[in-house]
């Protein structure tokens, strides 16, 4: 109930009876306060980032002050309050136990004059703990804190009040929107307040930290950064011998790789992918292992060996100690990546390009010369597959608009009210549809009547020269030019009218005739093979039939790959989990009217691939119209503009490989930041383990962890899952509320809120990893690259700055 109403504001819905200003205010309060909502404008993700930082700062700040208070014996000094707080904590645990018992129907719901007992108990025990926390904080900060800390503490309280005020406004707006009284009373108000206030409180802390950081930042000097970086660099070489170790392992493994990855004759086409994949993985593993070992031990060693004394007694800023190290390690990573990249590219050039592609092509040519046509065909196929993999295919994207369930054009599809969903939906078995337009001049979906934009398909990248389709394309284009010259609009006129116009206009006639002859010639040859194939099929000779088909295909351009990734929103559960929802795909060439239809089972989280006949592009002038409908009744398909695209095969592989290496470099940078950060407060073995844990969590478990943060996991939290695991229970069954189940659910309800927040600090290495994209021959596009760079810095900055605050507040000589 809470979430959808908040969502409504974020979406900018039009509640009746609420003034525009009020609505805007409510919207902003939600966008700024709720960590799970964000603006759809360009700064949306940055805003989320800031909100997460604010929340983490708040937790860190409170935790640090409180720990300080306990260490200085200023907190925990009041026996009475300490006992009250312990009672409060136990009481809170009991309350959530009661809550679980009630929700599993083991205990009847108890209300006291209309308010649930659990709410009242929660409030009372909460206040007991709250008073203790307040007391501890004021004492800790009153005792040793600086003046700015007192300001922040006051600011936090103001922000908390502001948060409740915001909740009050939202409650009011919701009420007048629904035309009812304020709902839920005080508990509900506190509930919304509890969701918004921490963010606002966090902003206060974040502001103080930002100010402190900036005053440090302006004092940073390049020469000192350089000095620290230089020292780190030399240490890695002379003390750790890291560079040499890594290089030797690389060369040794490469020698073995060469030995293992001999191209076997039947899977020659795979060799490119294997080599590229192996090389990037090798580079990744070596670099990441080196960083994991090297970075977390650097600062602890410096502190333990007391070499840091003579450094920090110079005018070095603490931030410089961290950033300087980061730079030094990144210089080392850069050197290693450059060397790895150079060796890898040379290796790929020799083994895949010269070794596999060129050789296969030569073998094909030889076979052709010796008139062994089937073998020639097979070889040249292999060569072309190899070439595809050793390229950087680029997605060609169109512009998306929708038809709603009544068939009316809309800018957005249907909103199914899911939070965090940027896709909009088409409803099954209705006229509702998603339409992607490609072309030189198509209506801008934002302002369809006023503006036009270009989403032209680079046809020449798709149609192979001297194939039936490319000749077709030329003929159509010439005919259209003639028709236009004769004053006939080729897109509206019938074929006969066009032909008449073309025959009358003599300009391109000769050329058209020549091309037509060539076209017919090629077509005849292709048809011969196709007929042969049909006959061979009938004779039960599938292998030969296949070969004949391949021969026929040689006269055609390859089919155009189309990829789609849709989400599914089910209003009724399918019989089986993961049962596909069906989509109808219709591709039209708007100029020639050529059409292609198919029905595809859509699987969630899959990239659905479809191959479109190349002839659809002939005479298209780079324009296509692709319509997707959902044909499974009562189900919805969710899609956004970038979810459907054609794949063109242009793009330089070498450059793409370098971009892949850059992304490995970015991962190394993030891990370096974490390693150095861990070293600011942990001894080296613990720092090493911490860095390792971050790395493993980010690489292996990020998707899983993210689910904690976003949705409730199927099968409950960690403790409930454990019980299911032990009991071999299905994820979907509601567990019988035995004692252990109740206990597990209670623990989960206490732990989940913490877990979901902690997930944010685990870096998403899988998002930064593009090695598979490169190995499969897809281009790492500029938006992906920029996004990854942004993401990497979004991790590096907070980790290094936190490291700075820790280093600043600790005694390096204790």
């Amino acid at each position, binding site marked *: 109930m809470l979430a959808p109403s908040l969502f409504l504001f974020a979406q900018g819905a039009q509640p009746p009876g609420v003034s525009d200003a009020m609505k805007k205010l409510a919207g902003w309060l939600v966008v700024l306060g709720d960590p799970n909502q964000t603006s759809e404008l360009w700064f949306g993700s940055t805003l989320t980032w800031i909100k997460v930082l604010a929340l983490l700062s708040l937790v860190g700040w409170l935790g640090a002050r409180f720990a300080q208070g306990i260490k200085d014996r200023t907190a925990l000094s009041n026996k009475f309050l300490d006992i009250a707080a312990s009672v409060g904590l136990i009481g809170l645990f009991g309350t959530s136990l009661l809550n679980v018992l009630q929700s599993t129907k083991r205990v009847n719901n108890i209300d006291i004059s209309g308010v649930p007992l659990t709410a009242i108990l929660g409030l009372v025990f909460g206040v007991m703990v709250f008073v203790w926390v307040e007391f501890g904080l004021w004492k800790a900060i009153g005792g040793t804190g600086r003046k700015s800390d007192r300001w922040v503490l006051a600011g936090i309280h103001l922000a908390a009040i502001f948060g409740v005020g915001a909740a009050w406004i939202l409650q009011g707006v919701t009420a007048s929107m629904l035309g009812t009284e304020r709902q839920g009373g005080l508990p509900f108000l506190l509930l919304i307040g509890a969701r918004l206030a921490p963010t606002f409180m966090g902003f206060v802390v974040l502001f103080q930290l930002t100010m402190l950081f900036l005053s440090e930042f302006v004092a940073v000097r390049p*020469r000192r950064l350089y000095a620290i970086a230089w020292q780190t660099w030399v240490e890695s070489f002379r003390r750790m011998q890291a560079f040499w170790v890594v290089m030797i392992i690389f060369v040794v493994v490469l020698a073995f790789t060469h030995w293992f990855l001999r191209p076997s004759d039947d899977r020659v086409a795979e060799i490119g992918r294997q080599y590229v994949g192996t090389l990037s993985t090798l580079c990744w593993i070596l670099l990441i292992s080196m960083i994991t070992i090297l970075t977390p031990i650097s600062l602890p060693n410096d502190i333990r060996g*007391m070499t840091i004394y003579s450094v920090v007694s110079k005018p070095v800023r603490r931030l410089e100690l961290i950033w300087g190290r980061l730079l030094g390690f990144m210089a080392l990573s850069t050197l290693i990546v450059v060397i790895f990249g150079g060796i890898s590219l040379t290796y790929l050039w020799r083994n895949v390009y010269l070794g596999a592609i060129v050789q296969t092509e030569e073998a094909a040519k030889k076979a052709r010369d010796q008139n062994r046509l089937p073998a020639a065909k097979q070889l040249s196929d292999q060569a072309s597959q190899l070439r595809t993999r050793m390229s950087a295919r680029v997605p060609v994207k169109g512009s998306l608009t929708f038809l709603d369930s009544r068939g009316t054009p809309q800018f957005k599809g249907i909103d199914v009210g899911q939070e965090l969903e940027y896709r909009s939906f088409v409803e099954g078995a209705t006229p509702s549809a998603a339409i992607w337009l490609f072309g030189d001049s198509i209506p801008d979906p934002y302002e369809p009547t006023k503006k036009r934009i270009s989403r032209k398909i680079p046809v020449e990248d798709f149609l192979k020269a001297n194939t039936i389709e490319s000749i077709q394309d030329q003929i159509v284009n010439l005919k259209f030019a003639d028709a236009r010259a004769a004053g006939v609009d080729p897109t509206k006129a019938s074929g006969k009218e066009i032909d008449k116009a073309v025959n009358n206009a003599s300009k391109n006639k000769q050329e058209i005739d020549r091309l037509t002859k060539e076209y017919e010639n090629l077509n005849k040859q292709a048809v011969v093979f196709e007929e042969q194939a049909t006959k061979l099929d009938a004779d039960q000779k599938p292998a030969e039939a296949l070969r004949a088909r391949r021969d026929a295909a040689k006269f055609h351009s390859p089919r155009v790959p189309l990829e789609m990734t849709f989400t599914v929103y089910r209003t009724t559960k399918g019989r089986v989990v993961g049962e596909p929802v069906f989509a109808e795909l219709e591709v039209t060439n708007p100029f020639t009217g050529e059409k292609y239809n198919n029905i595809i089972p859509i699987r969630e989280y899959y990239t659905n691939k479809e191959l479109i006949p190349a002839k659809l592009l002939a005479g298209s002038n780079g324009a296509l119209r692709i319509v997707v409908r959902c044909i499974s009744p009562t189900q919805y398909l969710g899609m956004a503009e970038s979810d459907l695209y054609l794949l063109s095969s242009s793009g330089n592989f070498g450059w793409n490989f370098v971009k892949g290496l850059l992304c490995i470099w970015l991962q190394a940078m993030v891990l370096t930041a974490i390693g150095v950060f861990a070293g600011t407060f942990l001894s080296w073995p613990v720092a090493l383990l911490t860095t390792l844990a971050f790395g493993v969590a980010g690489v292996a478990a990020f998707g899983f962890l993210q689910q904690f943060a976003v949705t409730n996991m199927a099968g409950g939290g960690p403790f409930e899952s454990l019980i299911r695991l032990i009991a071999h229970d299905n994820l979907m069954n509601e567990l019988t509320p035995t004692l252990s189940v109740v206990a597990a659910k209670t623990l989960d309800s206490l732990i989940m809120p913490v877990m979901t927040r902690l997930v944010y600090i685990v870096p998403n290495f899988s998002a930064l990893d593009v090695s598979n994209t490169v190995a499969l021959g897809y281009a790492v596009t500029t938006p992906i690259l920029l996004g990854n760079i942004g993401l990497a810095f979004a991790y590096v900055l907070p980790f290094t700055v936190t490291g700075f605050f820790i280093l600043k507040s600790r005694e390096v000589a204790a």
Partner: protein
Amino acid sequence: MSSDVIIETRNLTKVYRDFWGRPKVQALKALDLKVHRGEIFGLLGPNGSGKTTTIKLLLGLLFPTEGDAFIFGEPTFNVAKNERIGYLPEESYLYKFLNAEETLHFYGRLFKISKAERTKRVGRLIEMVGISHAKHRQLREYSKGMQRRIGLAQALINNPELILLDEPTSGLDPIGTAEIKELIKDLRDQGKTIVLSGHLLADMQDICDRIAILHRGELRELGKVSDLLTVQDVTQIKTTDLSESVLSEVRHVLDRNGVKYEVDHPTTTLEELFLRIVRESDQHPGRRRVAADIASKPSVADDELASARSK
């Protein structure tokens, strides 16, 4: 605060705590000190008396449990003050994988010094502390005394106004000690302020203008060395070539006045003797001084001498 006061501590107190915040050692108790411009100030005390703790507190490497410390009138956590400070840690903890030149350039880069000026200073300091012959060797190959020397050089790379030296002579041979003492006096003559700590009384006595004596973290004595060491009720007369007849006349006069007295030949310190031997043998190489009353094992002395010279 007058600009003449370089260091001031007020009620400076340090309690070392364990991980849980339980107090472990009270290393410094309510120290009140002022160090003035241009003096050599000695922190004297036995091991574990809180000298190093005091210096670390002054540099902001440790945070005071109570009280305040100011350098140049600024609080100690202010990093910018380090521009004008040189510090030699108790042991020269330097990066062992750098050579002497690299070390000095590294520390020099942390200050705002032009490259030309830095190169000049590095050369001069290496010369001054006497390790020119080993300047391209990594510090891991250095002896303790050599490390001490390069440590001193790095403390002077920024031509500091205030120099904090924690046991500067520990690990040095007597020649090195004497050289360092000379150097410290030179620096004072250039108008620099120097704070040094130590437990070797003789060393401190020679060079310090004022000393503070710490014991178990408490300040026991503070004042001018000459004042502290003067024994007011004893008078000493030193002469050379005093003949027996003159001596008996003096005795006679003293006896007549009823003064209690002792007469003997002064002894020299072993340090002074050692220095004299080295100096003499430098002037007359090859000549062995046979002095059974001084050294029972001349060969040992020779070894020490040889190694001292090679440094």
